[in-house]
């Protein structure tokens, strides 16, 4: 495993003993572009949360090679941010710099330049003074991407970054993802838009509470695999017995 890789070793994730993702193993190499696809309730967001270090696995383990949790930027589904909070776009994007300057440090000239270029990259020059509550859904998503740009992390996790967003904004944001990939960053995104996954991500994980297929995107998202994923049972079995499968962490 190369430096910067993330290895899943027989990982089971879930809440209150109920697994949402069952026995998944595999390696996300440094610089990989991985789309995580699957039906609602397949455990995609749960997997991303675990990769961000926000959820402890019920079984197995996640190994980060030469990565601290602080090296991982995570964009949750945007509903989790309080849009009524009185903060403007410039301050919001500046938050990304705190990874380097800490909670108390000064935003120096270098950081200012980085923030300005991030705003330019997402096409929001001139929006610095706007309160985030006044932004449209697409503009808000651009602001969130600008913050990720400022964060400058080697690993970037995106949870449904293109939900309810128009085609032009998606195009612009996909360009930013492509730029991250060129810079050698690892990008893992939960996507419902399969065309986008095929277009922007060389690898895909098709998830339906259990991994259906993890590999080249074309193959992962083939008709046969998608059909298999759609048969996933969402309801959980009240009488479910304890899982008897091998829980020891082992490489894929």
């Amino acid at each position, binding site marked *: 495993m190369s430096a910067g890789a993330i290895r899943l070793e027989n990982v089971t994730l879930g809440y209150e003993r109920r697994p949402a993702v069952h026995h998944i193993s595999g390696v996300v190499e440094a610089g990989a572009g991985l789309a995580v696809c699957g039906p609602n309730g397949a455990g995609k967001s749960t997997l991303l949360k675990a990769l961000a270090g926000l959820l402890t696995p019920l079984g197995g383990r996640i190994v980060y090679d030469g990565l601290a949790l602080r090296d991982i930027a995570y964009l*949750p589904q945007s509903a989790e941010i309080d849009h009524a909070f009185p903060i403007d776009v410039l301050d919001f994007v500046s938050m990304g710099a705190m990874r380097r300057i800490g909670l108390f440090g000064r935003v120096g000239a270098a950081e200012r330049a980085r923030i300005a270029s991030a705003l330019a990259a997402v096409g929001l020059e001139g929006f610095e003074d706007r309160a985030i509550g006044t932004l449209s859904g697409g503009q808000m998503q651009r602001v969130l991407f600008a913050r990720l740009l400022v964060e400058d992390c080697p690993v970037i996790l995106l949870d449904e970054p293109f939900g309810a967003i128009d085609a032009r904004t998606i195009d612009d944001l996909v360009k930013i993802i492509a730029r991250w990939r060129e810079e050698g960053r690892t990008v893992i995104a939960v996507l419902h838009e399969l065309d986008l996954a095929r277009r922007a991500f060389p690898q895909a994980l098709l998830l339906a509470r259990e991994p259906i297929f993890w590999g080249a995107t074309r193959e992962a998202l083939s008709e046969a695999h998608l059909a298999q994923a759609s048969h996933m049972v969402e309801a959980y079995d009240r009488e479910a017995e304890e899982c008897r499968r091998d829980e020891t962490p082992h490489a894929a």
Partner: protein
Amino acid sequence: MLHELFIAPFVDYEFMRRALVGAIALSISGCPLGVFLILRRMSLAGDALSHAILPGAALGYLACGLSLPAMTFGGLLAGLAVAVASSAAARWTALREDASLAAFYLVSLALGVALVSLKGSNVDLLHVLFGSVLALDDATLIFLAAIASFTLSALALAYRALALDTFDPLFARRVSPLGEWIPFAFLALVVLNLVAGFHALGTLMAVGIIMLPAASARLWTRDLTGALPLAAAIGAASSYFGLVLSFRTGLAAGPVIILMAGGAYFLSLIFGKTGGVIRLRRPKRHLEG
């Protein structure tokens, strides 16, 4: 006439000057905290914590009588214990913060009243519940000023961290190992100010001077940096006019100060520039673009 009404009481009577200084010190440190309590949707948490202080203060009182250090120390301890216990319960159990805070403060309030009844007379109970802003001695006044200075310094230092944690706590926790501790530190500041307010205004009124001006300020500006000094100014003005009114009418000073703050709040509800009824019901003509 105006001089007699608004200035003479403070020139003539030392206890009025002391009351004014104490109340203003409380306002300028407590009100900005109130703004953050509102933004964190913890408006009722201040209330809960102020009740939680009671058993500690009562224990101090039982041990040493009406002594400033004993009651302060006891109150501080009890308030911090409830703040930490409820935050911890919220993080590590299935209960959310509001539910666990309510549970802890109800228990400690019952404990506090039980303790006061063990020994106290009605006069003492009144002092604990409603404070004694007109009888602030040197030690108490210095204590209030020290807490105000400490709170303002802490806010100046941690303003950005606090705003970040209020707005996007997940992000705060990811960018800094200190992020985890911001909510605890903030609650500790609130407890500190409640204990200060408790000496002047009593447990029941202390939270009023923290919350009411803050709620008013939020109706006048959308800007956070503007809301903090505005809230402090409304709190200080309420203190001043409350003392004037109470001097004229003979009403208890603490409640009148809070009533003044309440009056400012009702005016803001109606006339508030960004959130008042008039502005929301009758917006100005829309702009060109």
